[in-house]
């Protein structure tokens, strides 16, 4: 079935009314003692964000201005699923935890430091993240190492645009990424029972030619708006030919380095997760097969669709990066 994708000119209910007036109105209604109406409004809001009531914080996203992607034949994963089925262990290990626990996450002010072996190190503030390069939409497949996948309309810019601004030195061979470390905001980081046994902060890395490939993307939004907290706000990496765990979230530092940087899942279980982590149906995870994947779209149990997994997640244009390499050995 087709999913209707909201375009920049379709208005949603809450966009028709100015948000401030909208909030005042509900406040007024409640003050006037329309208990029934108030309860209705409260439950209306609660349905959008699980169990939060009216007074609970709710993560704010804003509408972005961007160049739309070409229409394509792939069925998009619905926004509600993209934003409610997340692996972001900093906010808990259940798929529904990040959405439930990240609503109060503070992303403004933010600092993204770009440094290391570069000619011009710099730091980006929250506002600057959205202005570094013209924003464009890219519809990418995301293949999780757990053998499920989504199709997501990201908004952002090429990682290469950021690297070009920093001008890597010729001695720079790899790019290292780091997620925010803030145990006060991220319950998984201060409690080993909630964070999946990971040594935080979460770190990731790419070879510099992988990072410079035009497909490597820094996302600041999805589905027309800035990123929800649970999807890695305010800025995250998206490397569509690698398993999802490479696409590090809520980045505070990008460094050009000369040696292969440590990566979180590799540190945790080296025999199960390699540095490259390229999607490859022929190289199984030691405990489960990677030959097929379950594509998450609309519909319940009875419309689940399992499809063949493609080498490099179907992005053949990256194959030349790995010519001559044994992908079994460098998994």
């Amino acid at each position: 079935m087709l999913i209707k994708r909201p375009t920049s000119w379709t208005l949603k209910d809450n966009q028709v009314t100015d948000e401030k007036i909208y909030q005042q109105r509900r406040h007024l209604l409640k003050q006037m003692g329309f208990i029934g109406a108030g309860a209705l409004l409260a439950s209306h809001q609660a349905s959008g964000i699980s169990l939060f009531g009216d007074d609970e914080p709710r993560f704010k996203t804003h509408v972005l201005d961007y160049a739309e992607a070409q229409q394509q034949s792939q069925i998009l994963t619905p926004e509600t699923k993209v934003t409610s089925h997340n692996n972001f262990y900093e906010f808990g290990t259940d798929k529904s935890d990040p959405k439930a626990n990240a609503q109060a996450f503070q992303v403004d002010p933010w600092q993204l430091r770009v440094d290391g072996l570069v000619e011009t190190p710099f730091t980006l503030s929250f506002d600057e993240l959205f202005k570094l390069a013209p924003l464009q939409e890219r519809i990418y497949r995301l293949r999780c190492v757990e053998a499920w996948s989504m199709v997501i309309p990201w908004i952002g810019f090429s990682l290469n645009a950021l690297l070009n601004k920093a001008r890597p030195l010729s001695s720079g061979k790899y790019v290292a990424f780091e997620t925010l470390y803030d145990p006060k905001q991220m319950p998984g980081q201060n409690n080993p029972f909630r964070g999946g046994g990971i040594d935080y902060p979460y770190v990731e890395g790419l070879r510099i030619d992988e990072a410079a490939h035009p497909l490597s993307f820094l996302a600041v939004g999805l589905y027309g708006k800035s990123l929800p907290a649970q999807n890695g706000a305010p800025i995250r990496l998206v490397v569509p030919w690698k398993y999802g765990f490479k696409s590090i979230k809520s980045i505070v530092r990008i460094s050009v380095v000369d040696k292969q940087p440590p990566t979180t899942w590799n540190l945790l279980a080296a025999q199960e997760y390699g540095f490259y982590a390229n999607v490859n149906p022929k190289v199984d995870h030691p405990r489960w097969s990677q030959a097929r994947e379950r594509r998450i779209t609309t519909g319940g149990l009875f419309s689940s669709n399992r499809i063949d997994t493609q080498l490099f997640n179907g992005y053949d244009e990256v194959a030349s990066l790995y010519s001559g390499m044994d992908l079994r050995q460098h998994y």
Partner: protein
Amino acid sequence: MVRGLSRRNIFWLKALIHLLSLGWALLTYYRAGTDQLGGDPVEGILHFTGIGAFNLLLLCLIISPLVRWSRISQFMQVRRLLGLYAFFYALLHLASYILFELQLEWQLLLSEIVKRPYITVGFSAWIILLALTLTSNKAAQRRLGRNWQKLHNWVYLAAGLIALHYIWSVKSDITQPLVYIGVLLLLLSFRKDKLLKLWR
């Protein structure tokens, strides 16, 4: 006054077990079928039925220590029902795996059972529970005589295999499997002497 449960108490206890086990399963399958069970309803169902089977088996193993501790022997009368529901959930678990995860690729099922240790282990536990279920009625008990108890002691092995299946299946967050293993070890420790005798 003698402590104990009346027939009426037992009736209601059994009714409650039926209601919770069946109702919970029906509700969860309904939610999965109508896409209200999180982003990935298949994962949701597999998790629910797997954990459900383990919960019911642990409840089953609580009964005999409970009888000893409370001195209310009538609790024994609900043990078979709990065991049957444990198998019912395990059946739903395997059936959902074959139907929704593997989508009826039988060859893949065979190769997964052989190739993936955590599936081998889970499937072995399933076979044991199947054998216990098929021999759970009075007639089988009479026919098997002394061998019946021997066969049904395999439940301890099944519980251990299920725990292993669980901890092997998770990616890195082993907190919950460890809690389950702790509960299982506690329940087994009440039967230390019996298990040591079986070992010899």
